[in-house]
């Protein structure tokens, strides 16, 4: 996959902006009450209709075969309006790509057109959870155990889940249809942020699946590299939230009077805004460069470090985006508090922030050996 041409980048940018304006902007706050309000199925359906849900799929599978640069650009614009929908696109794309990379054609045929696919995006790639065990039986496997905090599980048809292959130390990826007997989901979990991208715990009690459903027998070693392609997209998500926070705070600061002047005239307000501007503006160039690097198959280090930089900076900066609005930032009306929660949630994609740092060094040292 080479880097995107300017024309398709511009076309998708326009689609994303129009979609965000039309489908997301006005009701993002209402849908953020999930699980105590309905799931925004309408926006997911609309995203499918305009092709945003299939951006990364090849044309033969009903997609447009775009690379990560285009995908990241889309997520950036969507996240400014509602990070939850952008996150759904990303999580679903991770599962789609796993299926494309490791799945049998018949399985792809069946599930790539699924409503949505769940994926353990909050687990750290080098330390996949070992709560589910897969035992070989006849021509297939029996899966048993628990997987906590599986993203999109409450609204997905099928899920990619890690499971320990019994008798080995290896963690494999399986695709499981969530309607399989023996699989049960907890009630949707109320989370800090991205509430519109639902999460649940999964329990699987001895379900039999055919061997076709084993996607990758050694996800423990293959999956960390697989995620590198998606790190620019996760960074774009965080930067998009920061950009939304920045624009909202800047507009507010130009309207609100305090201490005898419009507050943007106060230097302390400018310093707060500059904290958000730094990541919102430079982050765009960063995730673009990260995305081009992975599209061109260049080194992974930029994707790994760039994700740490942009998610950590964004999650701190949006707190200042709230601060500029004072009490009005703390209530839901301007969407700033939602952005603060969303950015913090995004920071834990691919594992806790300090763990991502430890894994970065582990990877660097391993490659240098």
């Amino acid at each position, binding site marked *: 996959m080479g880097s995107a041409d300017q024309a398709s980048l511009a076309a998708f940018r326009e689609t994303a902006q129009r979609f965000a304006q039309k489908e997301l902007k006005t009701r993002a706050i209402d849908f953020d*009450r999930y699980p*105590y309000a309905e799931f925004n199925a309408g926006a997911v359906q609309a995203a499918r209709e305009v092709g945003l849900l299939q951006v990364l799929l090849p044309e033969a599978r009903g997609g447009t075969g775009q690379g990560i640069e285009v995908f990241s650009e889309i997520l950036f614009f969507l996240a400014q309006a509602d990070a939850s929908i952008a996150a759904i696109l990303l999580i679903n794309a991770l599962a789609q790509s796993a299926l494309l990379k490791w799945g049998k054609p018949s399985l792809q045929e069946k599930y790539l057109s699924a409503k949505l696919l769940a994926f353990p995006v*909050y*687990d*750290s790639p080098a*330390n996949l959870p070992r709560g589910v065990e897969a035992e070989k039986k006849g021509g297939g496997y029996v899966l048993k155990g628990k997987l*906590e*905090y599986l993203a999109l599980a409450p609204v997905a048809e099928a899920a990619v889940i890690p499971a320990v292959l019994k008798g080995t130390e290896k963690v494999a990826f399986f695709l499981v249809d969530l309607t399989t007997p023996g699989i049960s989901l907890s009630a949707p*979990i*109320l*989370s*800090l*942020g991205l509430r519109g991208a639902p*999460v649940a715990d999964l329990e699987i009690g001895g379900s039999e699946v055919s061997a076709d459903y084993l996607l990758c027998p050694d996800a423990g070693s293959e999956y960390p590299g697989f995620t590198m392609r998606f790190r620019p997209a996760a960074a774009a998500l965080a930067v998009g939230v920061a950009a939304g926070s920045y624009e909202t705070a800047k507009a507010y600061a130009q309207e609100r*009077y*305090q*201490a*005898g002047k419009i507050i943007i005239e*106060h230097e*302390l*307000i400018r310093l*707060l805004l500059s904290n958000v501007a730094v990541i919102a503006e430079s982050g765009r160039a960063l995730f673009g460069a990260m995305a081009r690097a992975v599209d061109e198959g260049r080194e992974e280090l930029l994707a790994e470090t760039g994700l740490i930089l942009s998610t950590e900076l964004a*999650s*701190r900066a949006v*707190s200042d985006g*709230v*601060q500029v609005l*004072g*009490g009005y*930032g*703390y*209530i*839901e*009306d301007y969407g700033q*508090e939602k952005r*603060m*929660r969303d950015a*913090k*949630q995004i*920071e*834990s994609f691919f*594992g*806790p*922030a*300090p*763990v991502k740092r*430890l894994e970065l060094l582990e990877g660097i040292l391993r490659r240098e050996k």
Partner: protein
Amino acid sequence: MTYKLNFDQDERFDFDGNFPSLAVLAKYKPAMVKRVRKSWEDERNFLREHLSPLVLSEDLKHAQNPDHISWEMLRVAGRHGRLSQYIPGFMGGLGNSLGLSMMVNLEEQAALDCAFCGMMGGHGLGLAAVFMTFNMRILQRVADQIAAHQNDEKPYVIDCAITEPTAGTDVEEVELYPKARLMCQAKRVSGGAVLNGRKVFISTGHMATDHVVIMPFDQRDAVNTMGCFLVSNGTPGFSLGRMERKMGQKAGSASELIFEDCLVPEESILLAQDQFPEEKFQEQFRMLLHGVLGITRTAVGAWSTGTARGAFDRALYLAKRIKHKGRTLIHQQWAQALLTNMHINVMMARGAYLESQFALMRGFEKIPLVTGFPPWISDSSILAWLFRQNWYRKFLHSRWMHRQILDYARSSISEDQDARVQFMSSLAKVVGSDMAMENCQLATEFLGQAGLRHDQGVEKIFRDAKLLQIFEGTNQLNRLNIFTHYLARHLSGVEVF
């Protein structure tokens, strides 16, 4: 795995180890520190036994229904006398949380539930405002109401309405009042005053029976024409507006209060500048606001310290249970260092609020309503008897006596002491709230999924904590306030606002 709010820190939390300055103080003021310690132990028992079951379940109810009001939590506070914990015993209150005890107990409350402090804080702010008007008649009235209704379905609490839609920071600082875009104004009429305007973000507004309302008689000269009123629910012209949907701090409502030609009778005016027209009372409002802010910003420092500790406690609890690479987090160097950073933040914040409280005790040492009464006074049954006598109340509650107390209070606080209280309390507030937010950021990052899901209790503190950097003057304003009252005082020609 669900985090049970069970004071996991008990095994390590001992009074002397965490409050070395109080251990020293105990040598000189043994009775006082003994009382503080006793009150602290009582508070911990109350919190553990009665409040902890409600912390997460109440927060969840707000997520399910944004219009929910945590009456259940208020009832628990009422049944255990917590609504009168700032009212001295001889006035019929529990009186266990005045002065130093207030701060130390607030830390405990916040360590369990930051939002419970928010619910109690609106009431506490109202009481602080009543204290600082030195209107003993209305203070007694409020104390009697609290005592009479603390076992009701909807216990009696008050709030304090200062913030207006277009004036937040501006009404937190005396120097900024002349620049504020105020929309509220009171008008003198025979038999009282008529209030007009809107107040917003009023903590505990939808729970309160009476509301302490601060608004000027002349917007253009607000500081010199300020009035402080007690407005009761049901008063014609007064209504509650919307209840804000906040990120956290859901146990206490943040409410809009609407005044449309609302008549407040003379007996409900806590303090009005025209009641005391003499030159020497010109600065009375400055003293009221400074006194209230000195207490409440120190209190926010203690509340923030507890919040920082709450984040730390939960992170520690989970670090003993979550595994990374097959080993529990608590055995890994990076996790140990991260937890240590969080603990350092707690200790720094605690140091700041204790110093601020000592500055407050020094600055207001002649005003025990603020700094706490010695045990032999607060527990005195003779005083309690005296305060119930009508003839004594008549005397204490007279306008003449009000004037004497105001005069005494005013002359007992020097300009130096006032400045010290102002910058120390701002410092406690800034350090505390920044440390609280920082610890919440660290805990959330550290724990990953466990930090994000509601049932572990960490994401709740993250949402609760952010308010601490915003209210009682944003941390930006408070920084400038520290500069004003500490550095700029000694620099000639330096203007701050």
